[in-house]
Each structure stands twice: as C-alpha cells, then as structure tokens.
C-alpha cells in the first residue's frame, strides 16, 4: 500500500490516507533501495510533469522548499539526478546527531556545585538553532520544524529538572518520525514528556467522584490541532456541508469529555533517574538532580490513576465510525483504540497535509493539490503545483518566509558558525521589536506562531486567500527583523563574539565584473537566497547602490578588505529586505 502511494499523485481513496507515510521510507524498502537511481526523463514513467530542474533557479526554488538553503553542491546534485531521486536520497540519508546527543556533546548535562543550570531552558535554544543551522540532514530537520508548528509544545513554559533535555527529546521525536508514519508520530507525541507537560497529560487523573473530572486539554487539542480539526472535511480539504449549507462539527464537548478519560494515569518515567546527584544550592539546601534520561522516556502509567470508566465518542458524527472503549479497559489498549480512531478518521490526511503544504510551499494550495498529497513530503515537493513555473508569476502563489527560516537560510548559505562555535550566543529570538519575533520551539501557545486561516484586515488579497505568516507581521516586527539582520549579517549572531558568517566566495565577486556594476555578486546572492526570483528592477536597484560603495583601494589591504566585505553585506541585507525574497514562491 505505502509503496503504491508513495511516489504517485492520488486519484484513489487509498492515497488519501496518511497511510501513513510522512516521507517515503516505506517505498525504499519495498523497492530494495534505489537512492542512487536517477529519475527517468520520460514523463511516461513519472506521474509529475516536472522531473528535474531546467535551470539553477529552478533547482534553488525546489531546494528552498525542501530544506533551508541551497549550496552549489546541492544545485549540481538536484540538476543531475532530478527531484524524485534527490528526495529519495534524502529520505534514506543517515540521520544527523540528535538534539539530546548534541546537548551531551556540549556538556550541558554537567551538574556544577552551586549552579542550577539543570533548570535552564537556554540550552534548548542553542540546541535547536545549532540543529537547524548545521545538521547534516537538513531535509529531515526542515520537515521536523514544520511538524513542530503543528504538534506544538514550547520551551517558554518548560519547568522542572532539565527542561532543555525535555525539549530536545521532543525535537528528536519529530526528527525521528519526520519521514515515518503519522500514526507512530501521534503516539510518540502523545506520550512525549514535553507534550505531557504542555497539555497536561502528565499527572492527569481519573474523576474523584466529587466533581473533579479528567483534564480535557490534550483530548481537545489532539483533535482540534493534531489530527482532525473542528469540522468534517472532504478529501480535498474543503469543509463538508450539511443540507443547509453549514459546516459540520467534528466533535462536541461531550466527545472531548469522553476522550479525556483515555489520557489519564500518565506520568514521567522515573525508572532511570539514578544515580541521583545531590547538588548543594547557594544559600542553603540541596537539589536532588536526576539523570537526564527521563526526559526522553515515554510517559508511563503510574499509581492507579487511569480512568476505569467506559469512553464512548464519535457516536453521532456522520461518516465517522463510533468509538466504544468499555469500562476497565487497560490504558494501553484504550490509547491504541483512540489513536487508531483519530488516524483512520477521514479528516486526518487532508487536515495534516494541507498544513504541511502551507509550511513548505504555499499558503493557499488548491483542493486538488491537497487531495493528491499522500506520501506527504515527496508528494508536496514534486507536485506540479509546487514545481510549475506558473507559480512564479501568479499574484498570490507562495508564502511569506518565516523569520526563523530566513535566519537559518542566511546561516547555512554563508557557513555560520565561522569561526566561533559558541552557540550560547544565539538564544530566544522571540522579541518582535529587537529580534526576529519568532524563535524555534518557542510558540506562544499550542496554536503556533500563527494560524492556518489568518487573514489581515484592510487587505487587497482575494476573498478566501489566507496568509498565515502575516499574523506575526506588524509595524514593529518588520522593523525589528531588519535591524536584527543588519547587525547579524555584519558582526554576527550574538554580538562581537557570536556566530559569524564566512563570505569568502562572495567577496571574490564584490567588484565583478566591475566595481560600478557588481552584477555577479548580486546574481549569486539572488540565486542562493531567492532562487533568482528578484525582478530585473530590483536587481538593478541593488547593483547600482552597491556599485556606488567604496571598493578596492590600492595599497591599503585592510581598508580594501573592509570595503569588499561591506559590499557583500549590503547585497545580502538588501536581498533579504525586499518583498520578492520575503515571499517564497
């Protein structure tokens, strides 16, 4: 089943199950590998119209959707083997270092007398930025970041011992399952400790018979946000309508109250906490610090807190199989039954797929695009709607690049970190007035940084067009972003001792072909940052401005180096400030 749907657009019901390939790892085993094969150039054997890029620009356009950045080597590779083979190679590529292993490698598991670093969330920021900027398996990390904006938890509210490890373990769950099976991901996320802390499954107890009831938070959000959504959907993601033309609720509050019983009785697995480290605290007292292992263990049943009551939900939802978990069913069986029901719900595939398209390619995928996408990652990126050049000239195709993706793209494109590797210099960049207004794994709520249906007021957008990322665009954040990048591009992230870029290649082009018109420099930055999507007018504006800057001064190597570097910085800032770059098409 999975092999059949993995590399083909839909057109049949089976393709509408997430089935649940988020990547196409299943395809590879079914085909006995094949990562090194190249796509046939004949469209007769490919379901997609566009098998390989016709230009460097098309290659970069694809790469900037599939991962964070485009290098010269990436461009050559995708041109040589085509989109499908390149994607298959990424799916079978060895996974990079985990977040937990990264923290260990940097010594963040150390317990220092009179330091309470085990309560610090900061290393979670260092970890995720390092992963996004340097991990060797960028496509997997890109997919994981998109998943982190659907299955949201947040560093911002993590407390207790080792919150950075708790967040790293959550990040590792997303990376592990990024190209795996949605059902596996859903269960791993449900039992993940960060999610348990965030949406209160941890410590959730059965009713006490006096008025208290199981916590409903996870039961509600797992349906509203992680699996099926608020209203019943057609396979193409449009709402189903009743006889009166109204949408149909996917569940009632009674369904939530019933489902909440399933998620009771769970708590942290403390079985690997020993040896406990007794750490004296300045000012008196001792912290009994557990090993970090608990952070990555799935939550377990502890005590006798699982609800013995029957759970009946989806009893009267048209087209949805009722779920009946009888009284005294054990926790594991209850969980399997409930998650299977969400996984097999007809909403699941279109609900999740549409949001992944929005994160990777365009805010407004057509219904057909949504319905074709089953083996999510490969299908999203190879779909004709993603690849067709017509998207480049359509007036509403594409999406606003998220601020955190802009920074990661800059960092990867220009070899950050160089030379410093002090990741403690990059932290929480959430402040909209002075930083990016967004920081990975730091959503302000489970509803992510922005909502899939956001529309600004006073807009000239067509009716029905949504622009999710614009929810974090305002008069302050546009300014904060530009000011932050102006400094980062020049002196680096985190100030003078922070993470710097290496512009060696670009500096050689700083006066090429001429000092007054360095179009080779502008073209390179335009290619790598925007896939060559800047208009001729914009390229000309940038080239002219940079052409007027000081350059080589004979006999003064120091000033020459400064001048040439400033030219490079100016081009990067101007490219990263213009709307043609900011909107990824």
């Amino acid at each position: 089943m999975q092999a059949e749907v993995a590399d083909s657009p839909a057109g049949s019901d089976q393709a509408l199950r997430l089935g649940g390939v988020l990547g196409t790892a299943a395809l590879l085993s079914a085909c006995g590998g094949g990562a090194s094969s190249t796509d046939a150039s004949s469209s007769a054997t490919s379901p997609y119209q566009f098998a390989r890029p016709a230009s460097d620009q098309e290659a970069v356009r694809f790469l900037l959707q599939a991962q964070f950045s485009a290098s010269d080597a990436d461009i050559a590779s995708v041109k040589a083997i085509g989109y499908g083979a390149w994607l298959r190679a990424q799916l079978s590529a060895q996974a990079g270092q985990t977040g937990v292993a990264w923290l260990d490698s940097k010594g963040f598991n150390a317990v220092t007398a009179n330091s309470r670093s085990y309560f610090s969330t900061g290393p979670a920021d260092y970890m995720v930025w390092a992963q996004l900027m340097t991990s060797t398996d960028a496509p997997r990390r890109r997919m994981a970041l998109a998943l982190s904006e659907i299955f949201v938890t947040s560093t911002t509210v993590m407390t207790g011992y080792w919150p950075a490890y708790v967040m790293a373990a959550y990040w590792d769950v997303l990376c592990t399952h990024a190209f795996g099976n949605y059902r596996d991901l859903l269960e791993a996320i449900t039992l993940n400790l960060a999610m348990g802390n965030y949406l209160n499954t941890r410590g959730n107890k059965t009713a006490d018979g006096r008025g208290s009831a199981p916590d409903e938070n996870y039961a509600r959000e797992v349906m509203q946000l992680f699996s099926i959504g608020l209203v019943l959907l057609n396979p193409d993601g449009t709402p189903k309508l009743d006889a009166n033309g109204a949408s149909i609720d996917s569940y009632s509050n009674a369904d939530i109250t019933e489902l909440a019983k399933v998620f009771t009785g769970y708590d942290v697995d403390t079985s690997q906490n020993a040896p406990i480290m007794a750490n004296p605290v300045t000012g008196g007292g001792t912290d009994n610090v557990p090993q970090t292992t608990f952070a990555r263990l799935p939550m377990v049943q502890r005590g006798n807190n699982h609800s013995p009551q029957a759970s009946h939900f989806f009893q009267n939802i048209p087209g949805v199989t009722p779920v009946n978990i009888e009284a005294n069913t054990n926790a594991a069986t209850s969980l399997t039954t409930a998650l299977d029901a969400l996984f097999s719900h007809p909403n699941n595939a279109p609900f999740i797929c549409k949001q992944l398209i929005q994160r990777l390619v365009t805010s407004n995928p057509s219904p057909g695009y949504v319905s074709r996408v089953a083996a999510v990652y490969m299908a999203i990126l190879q779909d004709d709607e993603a690849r067709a050049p017509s998207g480049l000239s359509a007036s509403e195709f594409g999406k606003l690049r998220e601020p955190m993706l802009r920074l990661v793209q800059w960092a990867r494109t220009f070899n950050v970190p160089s030379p410093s590797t002090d990741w403690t210099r990059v932290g929480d960049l959430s402040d909209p007035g002075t930083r990016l207004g967004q920081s990975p794994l730091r959503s302000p709520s489970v509803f992510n940084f922005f909502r899939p249906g956001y529309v600004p007021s006073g807009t000239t957008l067509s009716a029905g067009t949504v622009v999710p990322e614009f929810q974090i665009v305002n008069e302050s954040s546009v300014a904060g972003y530009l000011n932050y990048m102006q400094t980062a591009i020049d002196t680096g992230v985190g100030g003078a001792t922070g993470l710097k870029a290496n512009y060696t290649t670009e500096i050689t082009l700083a006066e090429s072909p001429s000092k007054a018109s360095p179009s080779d420099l502008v073209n390179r930055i335009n290619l790598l940052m925007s896939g060559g999507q800047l208009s001729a007018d914009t390229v000309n504006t940038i080239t002219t401005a940079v052409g007027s800057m000081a350059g080589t001064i004979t006999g003064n190597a120091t000033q020459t180096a400064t001048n040439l570097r400033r030219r490079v910085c100016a081009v990067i800032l101007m490219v990263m400030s213009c709307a043609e770059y900011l909107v990824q098409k």
Partner: protein
Amino acid sequence: MHLLKPDLHSRRAFMKRAGQLAFSGAALPTAMNLAALGEAAAFNSPGDYKALVCVFLYGANDFANTVVTYDNPSYAQYLNIRGAYTGSAGLALPQADLAATLLTPTVAPVDSLGVTRQFALNPAMTRLASLFNSGKAAIQLNVGPLVIPLTRDQYNSTDHRTYPRPPQLFSHNDQQSIWQSSSPEGAKVGWGGNIGDLAMSGNTTSGFTCISVTGNAVYLSGDQALQYQVTTNGAVRINSAYVNSSNVANSTYGSTAVTNALRSMIQQSRVHKLENEYNKVTARSIASEGAITAALAASTPTTFTFPAGNSLADQLNLVARLISARSSLGVKRQVFMVSIGGFDMHDFLARDHGGFRDASNNIIPGLLGKVSDAIAAFYDATVTMGIADQVTTFTASDFGRTLASNGDGSDHGWGSHHFIVGGAVNGQKFYGTAPPVSVSDAKTSNAYNPENQWHVGQGRLLPTTSVDQFGATMAKWFGVDANEMTSVFPNIQNFSGAFSSGYMGFMA
C-alpha cells in the same frame, strides 16, 4: 451550523457608511463625525478625548477564583466542589483569606435563584478590590458570546436554527476571535476596529486611532481603521532605511546609497499580492515611527508609577505615555489593546493564578496580582493626567472555565466575570446576573433543577449577558450612536430592549 455569518453583520453596509464619513466632500469629516457620534457640542472642545482600553487575558481566565463567591451558603458549595487546597490538589481559596478583598457594592447582587449573594476578589487583587469599593470599578457577571438568549434546554436542543449557539464554543482561538469580532477564527474585522472606523475621522492622524501594544488581534481591525502596532518601548525605527527630518540618510555599512535604495524597495507597491501586503506594513511602519517617537519624546514628562516585572504594566505604561502625547499625535478618540497570557491553567492553578499561600505563608500574586496591579496603576496614571473620566479599561478573555476541578486546574468553559474600570464607570456595583454555584446535571421531572439551569456541565457557565451587550455599553459611552450599534454588534437586537435595557448600565 454557523448562524453567525459574516454577511449578517452588515459589515459591507458599515464600510460604506464609514467610507462616506471619511470621503463625503462638503460635509467634511468633522461635521459628519459629529453627527455619527452624537456629540456635536463636546467634540471640538480642547480637552475632548476618550480612550477605550481592552485588557485581554489570553488562555481563558478562571472566573470562580477571580470573583469568588463569599456568603456562607454559596462558599460552602464552592468549597465542596473545588476542594480545599492541600498543597497539591484542591482549588478552593480559603474564606478567611477573602475577607481583605470582600466587595462592598452599593446594591447587593441577587442570583438567578433570587438569592442575595456576596463576592470577594481573589486575595491577590487588593488594588482592584479597592477601586471597586471606591466606585471606580464595576463587575459584569457571567458574560459571554451569545447569538440569542438561551436556556440550558435550548442550548441542548438539536434545533440549531431556532436556538443558534455561537460556533466552536470552548475552542481557544475561535472564542478569542468571537469575543473580539463576533465571528470565529478567520474574522477580519473586530468591534474595537469598527468603533475606530466611526471615530477616526475626528482624529487628525487617523492611523493612530487603533493601537495595539501586543500582537496582531482582530479586535482592533476595522473596515477602514487599521491597527497600528507599537512595542512597550514605543515605535521601532528601521535603521537601514532611516532618513532624518533634514533629509539626511543613515549610513548602512558605510553607504547612504544603500539606505536610500533599501528605503525605496521595502515600501514600493508590488503586483504580487503577498509582497504588496508586506510592503504596505513596512510603509506604515516608516511613516508612523517618526511621529510616535517624536511625540513620546516631546510630551510633557509625567510621573507614572507602574509596577516592575509586570509585562501588562509595561504595556499599559506605554498606553499612558501615548495618551499623554495625544495632542501632538492629533487624536481625540483611541482604542487600545494590551494583553497578558498564561491563563490556560489546566494544571498548577494554585501556583500560577494567584491568591493561594506559598510555603512561607505569603499570598502568591500570580497572574491576577499582575492584572490588578497593572490596571490600578494605569487608572492612577489617568488620574495624574486629569483624564480619568475619559479613559475606560475593561477585561476580556477567551472564555470562562469549569467550576469543577480536574485535580489541580480547570477546563474550558463559556461565560465569565469581567471588570470595567475608569472614572466614567458606575462603579461599586455588579451588573448582569450572578450564577448559582453548581456543577450538577440533576433534573426533576425531566427539567434541570433551578440551580443547574445556568451551566452546561461541570460548571461551564451559560452566559446571561452577551458580549454584544457588554461591548455596546462601552461603545455607547465612546460615542457610537444607537443606529450604528447593530453594525458593530450584529446580534445586539436579539436581546430584549437592546437599546435600553440591552445596555448594561455600567457606564455613565
């Protein structure tokens, strides 16, 4: 079943109306605005100014531990339902700790069973309790989104055409949107913005009519009025695009040419609609920053005392500074929004909400302490500026929570209690109807027992006052005319005597 359809809101008609106000030639803005606001005499007087400030409590505030039932019979029920706090479970605040924040209304509130009740504020809300007891604050009981008045039986009816419910009850993002705009997520226009639409033509600088010191929120988006966003430090200058008043450009990486080129590029109109949308925001940012920065710097320094370490207070401090600069900003009517998050306390309510005692036996301030301190400090700032009667502050939130406990927190509900603060408030009073204290679903002869009529399970309050009534009461004070009210609050006519008793009476 979405009976709250946007087209029922008359937004189109409203937009045309507002457009006429702004662009109708001979009857220029001031005159038209006077008619619309019905305040012809007052409007041109030198001190004329009004501001409406929304304090949004994101995450849904727990009503039962905010405005706490106090009289002995109802407190006993509350204690039985929530359980005495043991350090790890139980949500009931000790009655003895409520004595210091006991509310002393001029008229005792009567609940829907006809029983006279007493309430105290959360022990962390001492300053807000003082404002109430000194007549500067009022409490609206059990308010929430409603299309029409509903009983519990009508709420349970499957006939949603006759008994429409607000869509997506209990869902955070949708109920935030409905509180702010009468429509679920995806709404483009909110009632704060619509009030701004009507008032903006009286402002010389109409772009400063609706100002947010927090994130983008539909509340402040009008058909014409756009929300303008500032930080707690004011407006943010784009350094690489800055040209000073003498027309001298900043140097970017040593080049003024780069600054000029960048300044031009980032504001230009674009054919691609998303690109154009982004550049419009940037252009507004650049156009407004200079005026805001200059006005804040030039306005007479006023000594405000806001608490430190309180993000809500930081935002309200900036609102106060902007109000102090109202003359140089050229504004006479402003709608502000500030917010504080973290109220979604499914867990750790005793630790985080405020009012319980810590290990050292001190009252924990929690989020409610911050809300109380920030709002009171802001009220004091308006007194300092001599405009306390011209500024009204109110709270709003996603929804109320369950009265029932889930162990150490509460779950999603519907109706809640909210505050209105200011010199123009008919304070020291409760408005609306107090709900009975019950989480029971018990029925007699197939009808819910009277004490169970006003919640829809686990003590999720069925509102007895609609958000439309709550908002319209303040809009009327702000100057919105009765015949404009339905275009701002689309369901107001569904509440009996909407334009007389529909107004809740808490504004002078």
